[in-house]
């Protein structure tokens, strides 16, 4: 499998990374180099192997339903590039 420039544009869009047209050939080439590198996996006999979902056989612990750690609006928005009245601000979203 390999990607063309249209694929690269689509992937970049999904990943929300701006790419300039002149970058596309190079990016396609790099991604194809990586895909070529993983190509050899197609030859592996997978037998009945299940996809790994947890690397060690542990049971997931659960927490009790207790209200605790509220960071507080000052801390939650304290690192925000733009905020107002403890809201985060983003360019207007039209639905």
């Amino acid at each position, binding site marked *: 499998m390999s990607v063309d420039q249209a694929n690269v544009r689509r992937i970049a869009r999904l*990943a929300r990374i701006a790419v300039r047209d002149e970058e596309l050939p190079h*990016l396609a080439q790099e991604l194809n*180099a990586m895909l070529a*590198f993983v190509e050899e996996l197609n030859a*592996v006999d997978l037998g009945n192997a299940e996809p790994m979902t947890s690397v060690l056989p542990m049971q997931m612990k659960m927490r009790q339903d207790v209200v605790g750690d509220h960071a507080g609006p000052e801390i939650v928005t304290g*690192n925000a*590039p733009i905020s107002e009245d403890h809201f985060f601000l983003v360019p207007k979203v039209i639905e």
Partner: protein
Amino acid sequence: MTQPVDLTLAQARDALHAGKISAVELTKAHLAAMEKASALNCYVATTPDQALAMAQRSDARFASKDAGPLEGIPLGIKDLYATKGVHTQACSHILDGFKPDYESTVTSHLWRDGAIMLGKLNMDEFAMGSSNETSYYGPVVSPWLPNGWTQDQARKALSGDKKGLLVPGGSSGGSAAAVAARLCLGATATDTGGSIRQPAAFTGTVGIKPTYGRCSRWGIVAFASSLDQAGPIARTVQDCAIMLRSMAGHDPRDATSFDAPVPDYEKSVGASIRGKKIGIPREYRIEGMPAEIDRLWNQGIDWLRAAGAEIVDISLPHTRTALPAYYIVAPAEASSNLARYDGVRYGLRVPGKDITDMYEQTRAKGFGKEVRRRIMIGTYVLSAGYYDAYYVRAQKIRTLIKRDFELAYANGVDAILTPATPSAAFGIGEKGSADPVEMYLNDVFTVTVNMAGLPGLAVPAGLSSGGLPLSLQLIGRPFDEETLFSIAEVIERSAGQIQLPKPWWE
């Protein structure tokens, strides 16, 4: 007389307890060394005021006989760890100005035990790299001199374009270089595909990636959640054992954290390895491996045999598949983990004409080239129509890789000995600029361990023909770090302590 910074962590601890040195003196000595070594670019932020205040408190606790296991020990912290109120940016532009209001579980364990924070250590951006060249803050320079270089030559290059100087490895390059250059007694690091063991190997230091789940991931900026694990880099096996005991432990805030008591790892250092069964995997004898790496490995086998261990040949048939499978799993997880860097709640924001444009401009500018590349490949392998062919297949292969190890351990193998890296350290700018895969091959011996969640330790075992450190890797059973410390100490003792480079950079 030995300078304070030349002490090992264990020696410094004993000197502090004996009252031969104060925590403040020890800390000041390190702060001074750091200042003179700033050109190596190990630290991206220093916290001298905080360090001295912590040292004073340590001295008070020594006075009141209230000292913790790491009391007064100055440490460097990888920039991936959240440190409250202090620069935490994973060495990425996208986290510009981020100062968390929280402390990672691992670092809070260190402070609980009395350790002192000197500052934040350089690393590859979001831990993606094997040479510390992807950092937004520029590359770290290894304290090791390139083969045949004079100190003057190195100093000139250091103040110039750094060409020809050596990389410390990565992603924990700042951690490894700072420990080797004696800019801290030990450092925290993280390992997703080899990011503790490979830089430790390149700098003649010791590094252990514990079993997945041993150290809490809470408060450590995520790269690939199912692979990431915290661990120490220090100058001796014993120092690593001391640090890991403090760093490890169950954390209810991390669902993948392992709930079992943490052993006193230091007790394993120096323990006999007589009768231990050491596996030698034939698949690690890869094509084109330098003869000196092969010799080093054989040397290691001889040392362990001489110490009474039983050496057995084993097979880990899926070894070859680990690196390509890793380059599917890790970028896939990363593409999702790094989605939160969107310019809304913290870090960099580049204005855009609408919300999507703001996201795209922010992430294009905020992430470096390597990170962008991995996000793209990760996005691709998860996308509709490719998920089964890539991601599911890679996760199945992971099951097979783990099964290989389980089989070996079921046959009575206590630990596995392999080379740590396929070569000694290389020069800055030398690898990966044309083909990213060239750089990825650095992790060929280490990455299997992450894929299987096992503990792995890199310990210096000799020098290359060019006078650079070379290490061996030990791979253990799940949660049996103790055996690794015992065996590593035998290698360390047999090889003789590596002579770290004199401070030519000062």
